[in-house]
């Protein structure tokens, strides 16, 4: 058959449309469930063992997460700083070498395309990590700049080690200088014949690090970490446990809490940084950057809605619920984008989109909640109110040196 003749050819790569990361073989013994998710072209575990077990490792010991699929670009050249400063909303000129910054980037209309982190390796060299592939946009942005842009996603394997014992485990691994590494800092050193870059970053809101290494060093890094971390409760974690931790940390996720303007079909579904309540990431005073004029105009006009943190009565997470201004549920003022009964805080928390002017309201709101109890749907009308984010931010997250556990 024709199909076979194609499948035996050198281009048979399509038979495995989702790739495994360089950690896959080494991590296999810990994958107890065959629950994988598709993430940016890779197949990664949703759960290794039990979600709750993995979640509690983040908060009590440490959890190891494979974040290789995170899309990465190398930006280098004489204009690299000027270039990035025009692409993103934060002030890249203020980013020192060996530091990391969280940022958004917008299109001409001031609508958010994606969020990510910028790592500064040198005066003229950066790495930018994003949720989605951005090469076309980054190349368009390069018109008029002397800058080199290359996708390096597959060239770098990455792990996140997050939790109170993460520092102790990395020290036991033999990495030097971590005691002086502050939050959002990074350093590079030799590890078993490979260069490993360690950044004090993460998506859990806890003390934690991310480790970046060439794919050839990946298996050794995984194995050695599991060995030295054994006594400190190191636990591989999947996407689901991370999702719980990131809600507690108050972090937002593309396609969950907002939609990239490149994907919206319906008019008005896109979001600005103001709407995401990420005003602190926008450096209006740094000069022009993509979307600045539109963002100023929007600010003057007034923002339509904002993402806020909510706390709710009871202990039932309000996934996808609508929010009303009144108990009678006659005036809808928003909706919930992510919800969690926080096991650490013992609070019912959520991230929600609330329309103007209610996003500044101190008054109670009512959430229309549906529970499926053994195939029996029940409706609850639950009181809720706006609270500050992050919901959870322990002192160890920023303590330098971090506590040894």
């Amino acid at each position, binding site marked *: 058959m024709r199909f076979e003749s194609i499948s035996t050819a050198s281009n048979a790569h399509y038979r495995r449309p989702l790739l495994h990361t360089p950690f896959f073989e080494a991590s296999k013994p810990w994958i107890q469930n065959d629950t994988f998710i598709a993430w940016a072209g890779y197949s990664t575990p949703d759960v290794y063992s039990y979600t709750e077990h993995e979640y509690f490792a983040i908060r009590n010991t440490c959890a190891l997460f494979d974040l290789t699929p995170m899309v990465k670009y190398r930006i280098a050249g004489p204009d690299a700083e000027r270039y990035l400063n025009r692409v993103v909303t934060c002030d890249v000129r203020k980013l020192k070498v060996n530091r990391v910054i969280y940022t958004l980037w917008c*299109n*001409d209309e001031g609508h958010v395309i994606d969020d990510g982190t910028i790592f500064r390796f040198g005066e003229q060299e950066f790495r930018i990590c994003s949720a989605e592939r951005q090469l076309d946009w980054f190349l368009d942005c390069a018109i008029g700049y002397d800058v080199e842009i290359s996708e390096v996603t597959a060239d770098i394997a990455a792990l996140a080690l997050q939790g109170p014992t993460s520092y102790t485990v990395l020290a036991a691994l033999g990495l030097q200088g971590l005691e002086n590494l502050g939050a959002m800092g990074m350093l590079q050193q030799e590890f078993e014949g490979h260069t490993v870059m360690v950044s004090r970053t993460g998506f859990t809101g806890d003390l934690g690090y991310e480790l970046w290494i060439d794919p050839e060093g990946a298996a050794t890094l995984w194995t050695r970490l599991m060995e030295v971390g054994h006594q400190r409760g190191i636990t591989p974690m999947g996407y689901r446990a991370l999702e719980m931790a990131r809600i507690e940390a108050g972090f937002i996720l593309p396609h969950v809490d907002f939609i990239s303007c490149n994907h919206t079909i319906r008019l008005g579904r896109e979001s600005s940084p103001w709407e995401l309540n990420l005003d602190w990431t926008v450096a209006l005073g740094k000069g022009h950057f993509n979307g600045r004029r539109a963002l100023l105009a929007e600010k003057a006009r007034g923002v339509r809605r904002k993402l806020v943190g909510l706390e709710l009565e009871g202990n039932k997470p309000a996934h996808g619920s609508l929010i009303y201004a009144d108990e009678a549920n006659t005036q809808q003022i928003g909706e919930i984008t992510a919800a969690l009964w926080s096991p650490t805080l013992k609070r019912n928390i959520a991230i929600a989109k609330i329309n103007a002017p209610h996003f500044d309201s101190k008054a109670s709101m009512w959430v229309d909640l549906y529970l499926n109890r053994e195939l029996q749907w029940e409706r609850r009308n639950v009181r809720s109110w706006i609270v500050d984010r992050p919901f959870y931010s322990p002192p160890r997250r920023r303590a330098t040196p971090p506590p040894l556990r």
Partner: protein
Amino acid sequence: MSAAFDVIVIGAGHNGLACALDLARAGRKVLVLESAAQVGGAAITRSFAPGFQVSACAHLLHALPQSLLRDFALEQHGLRFAATAIATHALSETGPCLRIDSATVTGGSALGDDAATYGPFRQRMGRYAALFYALLSVKPPRLSLQRWSERWDMLKLALRLRLLGTASMRELLRIGGMNAYDLLDDNFQSPALKGALAFDATLGAEYGPRSPGTVLTWLYRLAGEHGAGTLGLAQPAGGMGAFSQALAQACRSAGVEIRLGTPVARILVEQDRAVGVALASGEVVAAATVVSSAALRTTFLHLLGAEHLDAGFVRRIDHFRAKGLVAKLHLALRGLPHFTGASAAALGGRLLISPSMDYLEKAFNPSKYREIPQHPALEITLPTANDASLAPAGQHVLSALVQFVPYDLGPDPTAARAALLENTLATLERYAPGIRALVVAAELLTPSDLEQEFGLAGGHWHQGALAFDQFFVNRPLPQSHQYQTPLPGLFLCGAACHPGGGVMGFAGRNAARCVLRQGD
């Protein structure tokens, strides 16, 4: 910065000068900065061989509005015409040539029914062209229609269209998106007539006669002959440079300062506003408003810099199509050439070598593959037939537009250039036997030469293709179709804006109105 000028205009082409003059007439203090040593941009007269002068880029006025002559009193400032109402003659290798004007066609024996059909056809096209001409002198409306003035502008346009009557409007909508080849084939039999008319439909465009959108480009061309108050085809005494000189003189009388040989290095920005320019010399000149008549890429990427613009906007600037296909040939002749079948009177006219639509299409085809045509199509003028001052006594100048010559001449530009000159001279020799023996000197300017010398993007006459997607409310870009740019205080006034080039001054004058309306 304290400013000695209200407005700086970059470029002393006719649009830059027309813009400056309207602004000065409205009381603004205006400085025009020109990098070249003389005013005029693509409308200049210069020497190309000892004793021989030629209009080095544009060589005829084809749609100059009478209003520009009147408002700017150009004749008081020295403008004279060597010829007006210039007729077109379609040359034939063997027989008599056709004489074509806006109402009649005469001459050829093979015209048949076409002679009778031509009048009513041109009358019909003339009505559309007149409507078209009315569009040229207005700023394209905003589609948002937020303001009453915008709704009124749109209403006026709709009304004009409606006044054509149901049948005409329907016919316009039918043919508006057609190609010239099909339209002309529907209406005429004579290959010579069709070839000549199709030549005008493709002149200065990036298209052959079978390319879609060539009826639109033809209507644009015809607008110059049919619009209310246009001068029609005319040749200024002293060449196109004399027209520009008169315009500059009018500017100076109105208080405009023009600095020649003064290239601008950068447009200066403070607090997200244009605040003046830095000259190549290092000097800084402040002004609350900067108006640029330069090509889009020059203005936005070289003078302003991408860092002051959003990336989506810059991408559209980068994708703005501008690839000229017209080369320019200048010949110094030791005597008056003789063109087969053309009378002595015809030599003062516009002579076309485009004997059929297939000839034209075949001349176009190689350009798609970065090759030069074996048999180019030509528009020939002998400016010295109307104006002896351009050459030594008894000698002559031939100025020709050569279609279709690609901007990129392929792997061996030098060989391509030599072949193009040879092919063009050989073509001329067939229609004017003996002309090669008269040649004293020759100059050939390909589109990339025209870009070099005149700053025309891609060597394109209009600083960018005139096509549906780059026309009217989409010209140059949807985001800056009303002569404004994303940067407050910076405006555009060149041919890249509506309604394009063609030495009409509309882009400059429309821009001046927008500058005045928004305050400077």
